[in-house]
Each structure stands twice: as structure tokens, then as C-alpha cells.
């Protein structure tokens, strides 16, 4: 699916960012083109989740320097909702529970906000119900979840499926899925992974942030990046993930040592 003429969706250059006055990202570089699936791996605290929050525009994270371009435009000045509307989707590691707010209504408002951006007509309640019922199949979710409050009382697996459902409805240009596999049993992992596969399109891209190889057995990445200390320290193909699985994260340490020696 990758061709040299593919358009660049996301271009991150020398990104430095901090949260609560603590610098987490120390110069991240990343290019993601149409049709590509990237995996970002690394230990806890290596900056993976921070990178995803910065791309989505979380107000607690400050960009110190560097740039993020989406299809050629700088997005650093955009509010989170503006980023979402132009097609950046963040699948949360811990989806937030919002008591009292109906899941169905939430999905509809979000979908219409995206459709408006794409100059498509907004969907009324009935049209939306048809759409959402169809998309529910992708994640094999019970329609009863639509009647509940957003993520409230959902199990870990249900929350993640609800995230993929949102991805299915918003049809983003780039999906950044933060530890979507964490806390899932085998069946839920398979459903979520098959959902992600079904939703990959030639003109969209996916970044999987994960700890483990197991999600990558279900979804084959084109690139695997390893993050440590707020930087991408190694990039390779899917074999890198396999190697990492085999020899563990120790080999990163070795790698960094090498780097330091080289310095």
C-alpha cells in the first residue's frame, strides 16, 4: 500500500515537550504517510503517551520547540477539537467516564462535528442511529452500550471497543491508538485488532502505541519505532518488534549505551 508518491499525513520535527514543568520529549522526529501503519514501542515513561497527548493537543502538555504538521499545516496552534475535526484521532489508554452524558448523543455530536468539516450533511437522530448500528458490527458491540453514559461502568474491554467505535464513526486521517491492547483478554484483543484492520484505508494511517508484540501479531506494522527518554532511538520493520520481544528492553539500554559511547 505504501508508494513513494503517498502524501505525508503527519510530520513531526525535533519535538520537545513538557508536562507540569518536567520535560518528557527530547526531540522526536517522525514521518507518517498515507496507508502506513506505525508502531511505537518503549518502556513506561519513555514518552509514548506524552507524544500522543501532544499530537492531540492536551492543554496540560507544553510544546517547548519543534513542530507538528498535519498534511502540510502546522497544528500546534489548533484547539483539540479542531485537530479532531481535521482528522486526528486519539484512542485513549484510559477512556474517560462521563456520567450523565449519553453515549449515543456524544457519538452523534462528535460525528456531526467531523462531518461538517468534511462538508458532509449533518445526520439527524434517525440517520445517525442507522449509521452507528452498522459501525457497531465492526467492534461487535451490543447496542445497549449506546443507551448508557459515556464509558460509565464499562469494563476495560468495552471502553476500548467504544474507542474503536468512535474511530469508525469519525473516519480519521490518522489514528493514534495509545495502548489500545492493554487490559484486553484474547477475544477482546482480536475484536479490537480486527476493527482496526477493517478501518485502515489507503488514504489514512495508524500509529499503534504499545508495550507488547501481541497486538502486532494481529496488525502488521510497516514501521516499528522504539522510544526511550523522549526520543525515537531506533526504527525498523516488523522484525524489530520481534527482536524486542525476544531480547526484551535490555537491548535498548545496550543500544543507548552504544550511542553514548559513540558520542
Amino acid at each position: 500500500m505504501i508508494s513513494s508518491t503517498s502524501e505525508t499525513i503527519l510530520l513531526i520535527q525535533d519535538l520537545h515537550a513538557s508536562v507540569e514543568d518536567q520535560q518528557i520529549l527530547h526531540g522526536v522526529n517522525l514521518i507518517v504517510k498515507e496507508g502506513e501503519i506505525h508502531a511505537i514501542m518503549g518502556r513506561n515513561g519513555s514518552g509514548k503517551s506524552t507524544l500522543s497527548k501532544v499530537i492531540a493537543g492536551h492543554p496540560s502538555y507544553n510544546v517547548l520547540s519543534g513542530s507538528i504538521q498535519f498534511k502540510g499545516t502546522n497544528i500546534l496552534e489548533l484547539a483539540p477539537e479542531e485537530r479532531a475535526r481535521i482528522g486526528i484521532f486519539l484512542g485513549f489508554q484510559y477512556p474517560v467516564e462521563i456520567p450523565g452524558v449519553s453515549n449515543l448523543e456524544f457519538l452523534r455530536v462528535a460525528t456531526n462535528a467531523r462531518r461538517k468539516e468534511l462538508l458532509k450533511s449533518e445526520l439527524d437522530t434517525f440517520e445517525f442511529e442507522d449509521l452507528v448500528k452498522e459501525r457497531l458490527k465492526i467492534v461487535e458491540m451490543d447496542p445497549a452500550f449506546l443507551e448508557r453514559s459515556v464509558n460509565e461502568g464499562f469494563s476495560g474491554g468495552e471502553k476500548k471497543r467504544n474507542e474503536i467505535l468512535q474511530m469508525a464513526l469519525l473516519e480519521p486521517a490518522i489514528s493514534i491508538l495509545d495502548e489500545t491492547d492493554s487490559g484486553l483478554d484474547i477475544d477482546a484483543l482480536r475484536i479490537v485488532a480486527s476493527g482496526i484492520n477493517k478501518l485502515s484505508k489507503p488514504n489514512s494511517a495508524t500509529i499503534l502505541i504499545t508495550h507488547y508484540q501481541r497486538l502486532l501479531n494481529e496488525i502488521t506494522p510497516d514501521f516499528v519505532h522504539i522510544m526511550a527518554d523522549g526520543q525515537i532511538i531506533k526504527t525498523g520493520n516488523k522484525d524489530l518488534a520481534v527482536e524486542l520481544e525476544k531480547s526484551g528492553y535490555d537491548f535498548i539500554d545496550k543500544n543507548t549505551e552504544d550511542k553514548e559511547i559513540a558520542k
Partner: protein
Amino acid sequence: MTQTNTVEEIVSQPYKYGFITDIETEKIPKGLNADVIRLISAKKNEPEFLLKFRLRAYEQWLKMNEPDWSGLTYSKVDYQDLVYYAAPKQDVKKKSLDEVDPKLLETFDKLGIPLSEQKRLTNVAVDAVFDSVSIATTYKEKLAEYGVIFCSISEAISEYPHLIEKYMGTVVPINDNFFAALNSAVFSDGSFVYIPKGVECPMELSSYFRINSGDTGQFERTLIIAEESSSVSYLEGCTAPMFDTNTLHAAVVELVALDNASIKYSTVQNWYAGNEEGVGGIYNFVTKRGECRGKKSKISWSQVETGSAITWKYPSCVLQGDNSIGEFYSIALTNNHQKADTGTKMIHIGKNTKSKIVSKGISAGKSKNSYRGLVSISSNAEGSRNYSQCDSMLIGDKASANTYPYIQSKQPQSNIEHEASTCRISEDQLFYLQSRGIDFEESVSMLISGFCTDVFNELPMEFASEADKLLALKLEGSVG
């Protein structure tokens, strides 16, 4: 924090009902004395018993002191500087809507309460009250087919004096409190509802109160009687123009539910709240009480309070009949310098009586939002239960949220549970919604609606969306 500031901006919206209707009004001179009361009574051709009722109340009122117990300070009302009767100039009440001054119809149109036959709401009968008098009541004939009486209290006084004499002042005695005594002495108009035995009222009933004159006190009186095995759902709405003086609104509402009867009373209160500096606005000092006199009767109050400079309001249930049920669902949104002190009293007297209280307070700006409630279980109320939940949401660090639940029990075979919590709009929730493309303003509004959802679910269908819109309206605005 900038995010907090913008949330505050969102909740600060200009008042949309602040216009004044230019209409010729008949007012009696300012001031209050026994003669003024006689004059009001005469203007309304009232029977002797009612004049006596008023004068008795006036005597009591003179002996009473204005309350200052709630810790809220306000510039005291000069009771001699108020007009106690104001009415748009037209002959008493018109038989048909065609004869009503078009300016009045237009006023109610503008308020979103069309009265004319072509435009009126399809499943809601409306009694429209302008200053001191009722202008029109829709669907009277249709209701009459069911034996339901829905009219202004003045009309009820002349048409059904026996019902008035039997019930008025029996739930809220004339000397109940300072403002109830004042109301009993000078009340002008209001609504009357009577649901006969076994009748389920075929449509929602609604009163709409509009204060137009700046120096007129509004003292409406509402009485609802639900006979055995009947049921009714009633809603009141209120708005007023913007004046820089404080206008007094001291209403009394009495509900009586007999065996197996059920009354649902909903209020959407949007009186003018004063300006950003807290100048002007309505003093909303009302007494609302319902008596579940019959077995298995039920009274349910729901209220959405967004207006008024000061609100003191405790819609209460006296649960006399065995197995009777009282409910109170409340949303109070305060901003700028508004002060709302509201809650309920649930008085359990009969056996196996149950009550439920759900209160949601949202305070922004420099406002003060208090829940004050009483749950009392008397020694005979075996098997009674109460559950209360009072949640507050604070927006900005200058707003205050207080909770004062008084709990009293004398019956060991009973249970009382009270929970209260305080929260603010969580940044995580906001970011989650925004990251799905929902803009900041709508996200805030969704979170506030979500916070209030338990109460919205209790409002009648027709008004739930109206109430949501009212909150949304207060929340509407540009993101800073």
C-alpha cells in the same frame, strides 16, 4: 486558569427576556394597609370569607419579623414603596382570546408561550399571568370535558368558592412565615387546578408568570387539588424585564393530594437575575408546600432555577398518608452575584412513607448556591425511608457552594441516607470530548447537562428539552 475563565464566560449570558411591554396598566397607589387589602379584594369582587382571610393574614404579618436566618444579606424591601395590584387595562378577563390585547399575546409569543389557537402548544394547557392578573387560559373547554378545572385563582374564587374556602391556607397557614403571610394578605392572581376523583389529567397544565412593572410586587397564589386516584402534571415558568431595582416575588403554592393521587409540579424559573455587578433582579421568596393527605399519594417537585437575584425556596412535602411518597429534584444555576438558598423539607408522618431528594447546584462567578433541607421522621412514621443526594459543581474560585442538610429522626424502624459531593468540570472529561471534535463550549454544556441528567429525567417530556435549552442558553456564548 484560562480554561476556568472561559467556562465562566460561557455561563455568563445576557438575559434574553429583559424587554418591557409598553401597555397601559392600571395600578393602585403604592403602600400597604388594611384599606389597600380591602381595595384589592373589592377589585376582584371577592366573597366575604376571603377578605377576612386576607385581613387576618395582614394582622399576623404586622406582628412578624423579616427573616434573616439564612445568612444571606440583601437590601431590605420597603413594603410601603410597592404597588400591590397592577393589571393591564382591559375589562376583567376576556371570554375569548380574540379580545385580549394583541400586545399581550405578542409578549407571550416573544417569551415562547404562544397563546393563540393557531400557535399554541399542542399538548399543554397554559394559564398566562401578566403582573397581577391572569390574561388567558387555553384548552379550558377540552379540560372541562374531563371535569378538570384549570383557571386563574380569581376565577376560582368566584366560580368555586367552596373549594377555595375548604383548601386555601390549609397547607401553608397564613402565619407560616413572613412572606407567606404577606402573600395571604395581598395575593393578586395565580392558578387553580382541580382534578376530580379517578381522572388522569389529559394534558400538561402550565402557568406562565410575567412581571412587567418595575415597582409591582408579584404575589401569586397557586392551589392544586388532586382528588382520590387522580393525577396531574403541572409546570410553571417565569420571566421578568430588567430593572435596576429589586422586585419582590413572594408566591405561595399549595398542593393537596388525596388517596392514591399524584401531583407532579415542575418549575422553570428564569426571573431577571440582576446585572453582572449584582444590581437589580428579582427577590424570589416563595413558599411551596404539598400535603400527601391520602394513602399512597405522591407529590413530586422538580425545579430548574436559573434566575432571580436571590432565591429562597424550599418546596416541601408533608407525608401524612401512609405509604405516601415525596420527591424533590432540583437544579440551581447561579452566576455573578446571584444567591440561591434552596432545598426541601420532607416531613414523614405516616407509616412507610418514602422521600427522595436529588439536588444539583452549579455556582459560577461570585454567586452563592446553597442547598438547605430538612428530613424529619416522626415517631409514628414506621418503615419510612429517605434518600438524599446533593451535588455541587463549582465554576471558578470565587463561587461558593454550601450544603446544610438537617436530618432528624425519632423512629428506629426507618432509614435516612444523605450523600453530598462537590466537583468541578474535570479537565480530563473536557479534553476527551474536545478530542472527539466537540468544541469547548458544547463540551462544557454537555458536561453540565450530564451533571444534571438525574433531574432532567424527572421533568415532563415537553419541558425537559426546554429546561436543557434554558441551561444551554445561559451557557451560550463565544469562547474566549
